[in-house]
């Protein structure tokens, strides 16, 4: 359960809106069943009081919205940043993707978000959800009220949270946390331990479910190209035909290469995938490799840092070593 409450956020949003600091608020809007929350732009106190919510299903990372929203806006927009969102925020600033002056950022602590897929695999017919200290009380169509522990339905990315520290904000609500020594690379290590054939079979099994909806790309805060190569009919790589074996694999691998060094490991790609493909593992493999080859690097930890792949130091790996590593790692 989140320590930061809806009321705290509403009070802050209304305060900043009414004193003229901001002219719009990027926030979470309630849905039909308490878990289907939509990111929304609020511009009046009334809208905020009627629709603004904050709970364990507010996982969406708002940083990318700032690219589009700040362009059209008169005045500043208020954005609430959970720790992992704040890394994306910094990374976008590093890439000059939005005007920092047009944003008022409020950092908020995060206790980890729930995964709606995990919840639905446990509970049928969710009518509404109550958040209590000892768990969620889910009112259902078939089984009355079901109690679910937060840990049981916590999103994978939150179980393996890399940092509870907000790295960017104008103002912080609640207490800041620390960078965590997480186990997020364990699953990558187990994939590395497979034989090449096993690993190929693993990825083929996962990626063959892809429907090329592009949700991973469209949600990804590192994917902010004005025109994606996959949206260009002249590029020879189509954006909507998934069945040729080349494309279903290459789309995701090309994307992973493109965001390498820029991916902050926010996990939005896997959250939004309608087929539950663990896409974040591709990005984590890159992060793990870069950490091992070039020293620890966390994209978005600070504004202006140079990712290992676009930086040169004398200690860099020699091409020969990379080649050898590839041979051994196959």
């Amino acid at each position, binding site marked *: 359960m989140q320590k930061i409450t809806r009321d705290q956020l509403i009070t802050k949003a209304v305060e900043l809106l009414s004193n003229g600091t901001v002219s719009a608020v990027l926030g979470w809007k309630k849905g039909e069943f308490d878990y289907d929350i939509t990111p929304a732009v609020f511009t009046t106190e009334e809208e905020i009081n009627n629709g603004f919510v904050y709970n364990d299903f507010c996982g969406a990372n708002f940083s990318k919205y700032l690219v589009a929203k700040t362009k059209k806006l008169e005045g500043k927009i208020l954005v609430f940043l959970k720790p992992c969102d704040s890394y994306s925020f910094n990374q976008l600033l590093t890439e000059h993707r939005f005007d920092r002056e047009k944003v008022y950022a409020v950092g908020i602590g995060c206790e980890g978000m729930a995964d709606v897929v995990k919840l639905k695999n446990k509970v049928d017919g969710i009518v509404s959800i109550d958040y209590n200290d000892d768990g969620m009380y889910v009112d259902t169509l078939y089984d009355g009220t079901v109690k679910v522990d937060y840990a049981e339905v916590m999103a994978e990315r939150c179980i393996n949270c890399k940092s509870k520290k907000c790295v960017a904000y104008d103002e912080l609500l609640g207490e800041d946390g620390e960078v965590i020594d997480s186990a997020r690379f364990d699953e990558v290590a187990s994939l590395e331990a497979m034989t090449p054939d096993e690993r190929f079979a693993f990825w083929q099994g996962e990626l063959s479910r892809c429907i090329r909806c592009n949700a991973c790309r469209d949600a990804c805060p590192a994917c902010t190209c004005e025109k994606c190569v996959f949206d260009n009919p002249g590029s020879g790589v189509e954006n*909507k035909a998934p069945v040729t074996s080349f494309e279903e694999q290459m789309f995701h691998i090309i994307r992973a290469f493109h965001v390498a060094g820029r991916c902050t490991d926010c996990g939005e790609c896997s959250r939004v995938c309608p087929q539950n493909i663990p896409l974040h593992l591709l990005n984590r493999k890159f992060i793990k490799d870069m950490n091992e080859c070039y020293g620890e690097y966390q994209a978005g930890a600070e504004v202006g840092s140079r990712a290992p792949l676009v930086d040169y130091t004398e200690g860099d790996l020699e091409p020969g070593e990379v080649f050898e590593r590839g041979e051994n790692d196959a």
Partner: protein
Amino acid sequence: MRKLSLDNLNKFFAAVAESKTIYLPVDQKDGSAKYAKWAEGTEWSNALNTVRSPKDLFFPQTEDLMEFKTEGKNIEIIDIRKESEDFVIFGVRACDVKSFEVLDRVFLSEPVDSFYASRREHAIIVALACTRPSETCFCTTFGIDATEPAGDVSAWKTDSALYLKANTEKGEAFLKSIEALTEDADTAEVDAQKTKTAEIMKKLPLADLTTDAFGGGKTEELWNNPVWDEMSQTCLGCGTCTFVCPTCQCYDIKDFNTGNGVIRYRCWDSCMYSEFTRMAHGNNRLSQKERFRQRFMHKLVYYPENNEGLFSCVGCGRCLAKCPISMNIVKVMKKIGGDK
């Protein structure tokens, strides 16, 4: 009505599979379900619905249409169509069965899409009544009875048996072909199940949703509604809603250069995409708001206008479950219709 003991279910699948391919919902490793071919050992999923709808079996996501081979100045056009054989789609929910009617009106009206038509002719649809609808279900809004699904054969699954009723000649022939495995049965158990499910349907959170604000002739009234601006502002422009939708039917036709010829294929397209219906002069829907409006106006206004009031949504709830930002047709209908 015929009755098949669930103990004989595998024998039944095996008997049908001797002459026809059967597609049925099976569980995937992540807990969701998909339609797959039955083979010895395949388990029928208990899932309420599959992530991808059974429309794939009539209108696959990509499909080769024809091939051109060039030699010097000669072009040979090759019809690469494979003649379809009879197949069975088993366990189709009432909403998805209704979606076939929506697709039929597009693909089977002149000019008839012969690829779609051939598969449709060869398919036998065994539809399954719902017993545990989800909170995201709203088929009743579109006049669909989840307890009495259409299809060539309607089926009801109880704890011990599968009840089967033929609705068409194809369905009768199908039941005849498996007669040895089934027995005559009265409708008592099925009636009891239907009554029970109907009670649940009434209690669903979306049971009161109506289409009153929509239908043919509403274009001018709804076109400039400020709702489109408001609700589309965080739409990612991905194609999830359109690709999991059982009634979305837009496609693109493209040519693939093979080096010594061309394969012409078609693939699903999405009105959410920036390249959708792009023409020589450019794109006719430049903003996400316009694309967003197109999707809902098509389902709730344009389609019914051209199809005697039939809406091109069947209330299956897939988009409700899968949209990355949880924006969906229900939210749009409630916002425009005044929370009804």
